[in-house]
C-alpha cells in the first residue's frame, strides 16, 4: 500500500514537472498541430517544426501520447502517382543549428490506434523523444481537416472560386 502511494506520488511529481520540459534548451518545437480526423478513422498525423539550437545533430527517435496506442515517425511521398508512406528508419535527423519541418506531403508523427476521433478546437499532450535532447513535451492543438493545397496551419478551409 505504501509502495502504491509512493508510486502515485512519484507519478504526480513527474506530471507536475513535465511542463518544465516543454522547451528543451537544444530542441525547440514550433507550431505543432494535428488535423481533425473523420469518424471511423483510427489514425491521425501531427505536424510541427523542430529547431535544433545545439551544435550537434540530433534525432527524433519516437513519440508517445495518451490519445493513441502507437506513435511512429513517417515520411509520406507521392511517387509516380502512388502514395507511399514509410517509417523513418533510425529516427529523423535534425541538423546542428538547423530545422526540419513536419508537414503534409512530407514527414509526420503518425498516431496509430486513436482512442477517439480528434476534433477541431481540442488539444492533447504529446511527448517527443530525441536521441540527445531527451524528452520534450508539447501540447498539440487540433485543426479542421485540411485540403491538399493548404500545407500550412491556418490556411485553406475556404475556397475562393472566381
Amino acid at each position: 500500500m505504501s509502495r502504491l502511494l509512493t508510486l502515485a506520488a512519484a507519478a504526480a511529481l513527474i506530471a507536475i514537472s513535465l511542463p518544465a520540459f516543454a522547451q528543451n534548451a537544444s530542441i525547440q518545437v514550433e507550431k505543432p498541430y494535428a488535423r481533425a480526423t473523420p469518424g471511423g478513422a483510427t489514425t491521425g498525423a501531427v505536424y510541427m517544426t523542430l529547431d535544433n539550437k545545439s551544435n550537434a545533430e540530433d534525432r527524433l527517435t519516437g513519440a508517445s501520447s495518451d490519445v493513441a496506442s502507437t506513435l511512429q515517425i513517417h515520411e509520406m511521398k507521392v511517387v509516380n502517382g502512388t502514395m507511399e508512406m514509410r517509417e523513418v528508419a533510425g529516427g529523423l535527423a535534425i541538423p546542428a543549428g538547423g530545422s526540419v519541418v513536419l508537414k503534409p506531403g512530407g514527414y509526420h508523427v503518425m498516431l496509430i490506434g486513436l482512442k477517439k476521433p480528434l476534433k477541431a478546437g481540442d488539444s492533447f499532450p504529446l511527448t517527443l523523444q530525441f536521441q540527445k535532447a531527451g524528452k520534450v513535451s508539447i501540447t498539440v492543438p487540433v485543426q479542421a481537416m485540411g485540403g491538399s493545397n493548404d500545407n500550412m496551419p491556418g490556411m485553406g478551409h475556404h475556397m475562393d472560386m472566381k
Partner: protein
Amino acid sequence: MHRHHLVLAAVTAVAVIAAGFSVSLVAWLGGVNARVGSGGVGGPFNLVDDRGAAVTETVLAGRPWVIYFGYTFCPEVCPTTLNDLARWMKALGPDADKLNYVFVTVDPARDTPQVMHDYVSAFDPRIRGFTGTPGEIAKVAREYGVYYQRIPTSDGGYVMDHSAALYLMGPDARFVSLIHYQEDDATAVDKLRRLAALAGSS
C-alpha cells in the same frame, strides 16, 4: 499398344494445353486491345457498399462518376483527398448532384462496411464507400489500373501504398480524366463541372 495410347494421350495433352494457352493469350491480348479502345479504365465489379448492400457497376451507370481508391487507416492522403472532393462538391453547387461518388478501399481486411460508412459520411453523405472480398478488390483495382501494396510497420501492423488520383468516368462508363493529388482547386472543379455536363448525354 498401351505405349502407343500413352504417347497419343501425352501428345494430345500437350496440344490441348498449348491450344488453351494460345487461346487465352489471344483472349488476353484482345482484352487488352478492347480495354485500350475504351480508354482502358474501369469495368464490372461485385462489391459491398457502406450500408452492407451488394453492389455492381450498374449502381453507378447512368450518371458520370468519381471513383477513388484508398483506405481509412490512411492518416493523410485519403482524408485530404476526400476533404478536397467534399469542398469541390460544395463549389459545384447543384451540378454536384449530377455525379456519383465512390471511395473504394484497398484494405478490405480492416475496412468493413461500418468503418467505411463512418468514414465517408464525415466528408459528404453523397460519397459512398465500397469494400469487398480481397479478390474482388484486386479485380476492380486492376480494372482501373490502380496499384496498391501492403507495407508492414514495426509495430506488427501495416500501411498501404496506393495510387493517389481520382478517376472521372462518363455516364457510358468510359474513362474521362484524372484529378491528380494536389491538383489546384480551380482545375479540379473545372474538370468536375465538365464531367457533370456529360450527365444525361449518354
